């Protein structure tokens, strides 16, 4: 070949890694594949490729028999590493898109027999959507691009096209038959065998399963919250007995983050709080186990975001706090008590900043007008959602103050209340109607459709307006609901905790015994 070609050496250890990785995949040795995927790959990356990409596929093709499927899989990992550690160019983005099309195309059409670790399959879907979001962000920054970059971009209108992305995800769902399978037994077999059914491949099945979450995510990113919740059928966010996602933290957190957010934007705060409660408890339980995993930081970030969203839910619907677990409530108070106090006073800026921090990175699904390079179009999608949210917040802005007044009285004439609040009677009537309307929301109460629900009243204050038949005056009457404090769950919880403590105390301390034996031996040795 030409003398200008660089002489590229691949370290032997990397070639060995590729060779054994390929062998293990051929032999369907799942534990080995997983260990090489999770541990060895990261170690080698840190050692040799900390800020540069791995060798291109042609350099390792010879040690893997030029196997077509393995090369596609390797390229998937290659681009994932590139996106994480380096800055991808437009060329890299296009090539990665082509690779995903080839890889998914192959998995959809030919009958592969291999088994891959579920975490890898989840990472594939997750990375696919992350690169999609990244491309939309990149494409929107028109004003900082050179003219030739813009020319090249104009030619790539099929690359990372949203309709194509959605069609790929839907094809994975359809071809894997996952919907029929989950409808049949509610996911019991999948959970039991973790997707590794003997004599068959788990790849398409699990890709289909994770694509359900993928569809939810993409719909949220374009502001289509109704279809987002419809798309995860038949996964059930509220009855989670046979949900497989808890085995893979990334999948579980993504599912509930976008699910809860979809409920929040549809003004279903009770359902949203329920989702966030479930996943925040989950993170609370498992985060210690994942302290060393590369996804730990991402987990913590989502944790913070979801506490912010939960704070918003409670500010807009205080009655939702009744369904929260006490651990979650405690953590929430620790992190967000200032914000919650400000929001209950009607401070729009706090709502704004919390939403900004916690919302997903919305995408503008269409390419910008390249010739009118004026603004960053990524902000358009975000601002549209933000404004929609703030509109809802503003419509409730005067209500907390009204509630404060109502709490003081059991009955008060409408005219008198208007005078006290310094508003017109007409305006007061409108506010009372608004308060009543806002207290009613849809709540999921069974069935497989996540968008279904019945109308429930979610309020901590019940009132109504009546006309006194004797005098003809309008009165606002506030209901008196006495709640008896429930001690049973609290006592049960503490009994259980104390029993655990007592059990731990009554165990013979193994360390102390060994130390006692050691200290007994040392003086004996010293004396001897």
């Amino acid at each position: 070949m030409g003398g200008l070609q660089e002489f590229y050496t691949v370290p032997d250890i990397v070639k060995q890694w590729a060779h054994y990785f390929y062998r293990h995949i051929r032999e369907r040795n799942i534990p080995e594949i997983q260990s090489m995927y999770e541990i060895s790959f990261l170690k080698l990356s840190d050692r040799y490729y900390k800020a540069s990409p791995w060798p291109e596929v042609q350099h390792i093709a010879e040690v893997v028999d030029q196997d077509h499927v393995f090369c596609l899989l390797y390229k998937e990992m290659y681009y994932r590493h590139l996106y994480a550690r380096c800055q991808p160019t437009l060329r890299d983005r296009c090539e990665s898109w082509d690779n995903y099309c080839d890889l998914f195309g192959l998995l959809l059409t030919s009958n592969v027999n291999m088994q891959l670790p579920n975490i890898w399959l989840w990472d594939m879907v997750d990375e696919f959507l992350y690169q999609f979001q990244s491309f939309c962000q990149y494409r929107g920054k028109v004003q900082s691009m050179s003219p030739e970059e813009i020319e090249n971009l104009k030619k790539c209108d099929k690359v990372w096209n949203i309709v194509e992305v959605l069609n790929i995800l839907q094809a994975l769902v359809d071809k894997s038959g996952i919907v029929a399978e989950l409808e049949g037994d509610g996911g019991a077999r999948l959970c039991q065998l973790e997707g590794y059914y003997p004599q068959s491949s788990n790849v398409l099945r699990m890709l289909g399963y994770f694509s359900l979450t993928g569809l939810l995510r993409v719909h949220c990113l374009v502001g289509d919250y109704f279809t987002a919740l419809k798309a995860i059928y038949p996964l059930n966010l509220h009855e989670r007995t046979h949900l497989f996602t808890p085995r893979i933290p990334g999948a579980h957190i993504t599912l509930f983050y976008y699910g809860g957010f979809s409920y929040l934007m549809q003004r279903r705060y009770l359902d949203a709080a329920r989702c966030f409660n479930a996943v925040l408890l989950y993170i609370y339980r498992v985060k210690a186990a994942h302290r060393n995993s590369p996804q730990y930081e991402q987990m913590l970030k989502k944790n913070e975001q979801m506490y912010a969203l939960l704070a918003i839910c409670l500010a807009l619907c205080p009655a939702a706090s009744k369904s929260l677990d006490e651990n979650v409530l405690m953590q929430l108070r620790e992190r967000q008590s200032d914000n919650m106090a400000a929001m209950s006073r009607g401070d729009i800026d706090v709502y704004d900043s919390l939403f900004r921090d916690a919302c997903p990175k919305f995408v503008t699904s269409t390419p910008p007008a390249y010739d009118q390079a004026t603004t960053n179009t990524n902000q358009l999608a975000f601002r549209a959602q933000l404004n929609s949210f703030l509109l809802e917040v503003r419509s409730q802005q005067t209500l907390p103050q009204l509630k404060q007044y109502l709490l003081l009285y059991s009955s008060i004439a409408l005219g008198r209340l208007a005078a006290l609040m310094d508003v017109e009677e007409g305006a007061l009537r409108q506010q009372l109607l608004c308060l009543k309307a806002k207290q009613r929301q849809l709540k999921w109460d069974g069935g497989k459709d996540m968008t279904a629900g019945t109308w429930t009243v979610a309020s901590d204050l019940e009132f109504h307006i009546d006309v006194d038949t004797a005098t003809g005056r309008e009165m606002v009457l506030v209901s008196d609901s006495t709640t008896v404090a429930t001690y049973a769950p609290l006592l049960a919880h503490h009994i259980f905790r104390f029993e655990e403590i007592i059990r731990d105390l009554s165990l013979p301390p193994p360390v102390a015994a060994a130390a006692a034996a050691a200290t007994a031996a040392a003086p004996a040795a010293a004396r001897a």
Partner: protein
Amino acid sequence: MSIIVTGADRYSPEKLPQLEVYVDEQVTNRTWSLDSNATLLRFYQFSPASVKPAIVAKVLIKAIMQAPNQDFKCLITLLPERLQQSDESVYKVVQLANALETSRFSDFWNAANTCRELLGSIPGFYESVRGFIAHTLVHTYGRVTKRTLADCLKLEGATLEQYLAEKCKSAGWSIVNTPAGEVVGLPKNDDNQSVVKRTQELIRFDQVAPMLKSVTVGF
């Protein structure tokens, strides 16, 4: 004809003309399908060149008619802001929806006056909206003055009397006489009367069962 949009149908752009025709059908037949309309608006978002603002306005008006369902809220987040502001009829419809959502009924009727032909072209609009307003009133008022009722529903004189007579027959409303004039009594439900709720604590067996094991040790 009703189009069911599930699975891959959601993402095939060839369906676009079919969905547009379906909107007109929903208008004439007074039906509604949130799935297909959401798909339509989603396609409009993906390819702004094919947007037809007239159809968007029709879809949004139909969505308002579904109140108190939050269908309007589900659809408005799909529309780019530019479209909401550039097209006059879409802008007006958004204002109408916001007024209804916050129970500013006088603002709603004022705005509705400015686009009477548009709203008149959708059969059943005024009935649905009045139905929603009545629904809100029923859940807030035990008894409401005629004046308030007239203002909220924008009905006067003979039409108001006719409306009330119908409601008294079919929906359990009643007319009560008071010194200050006639007052309309609304049907009783959970929301518009004083209910003193005493929530009892019931301790269930499954809450106590885990503890019984340790408590009964030694028996």
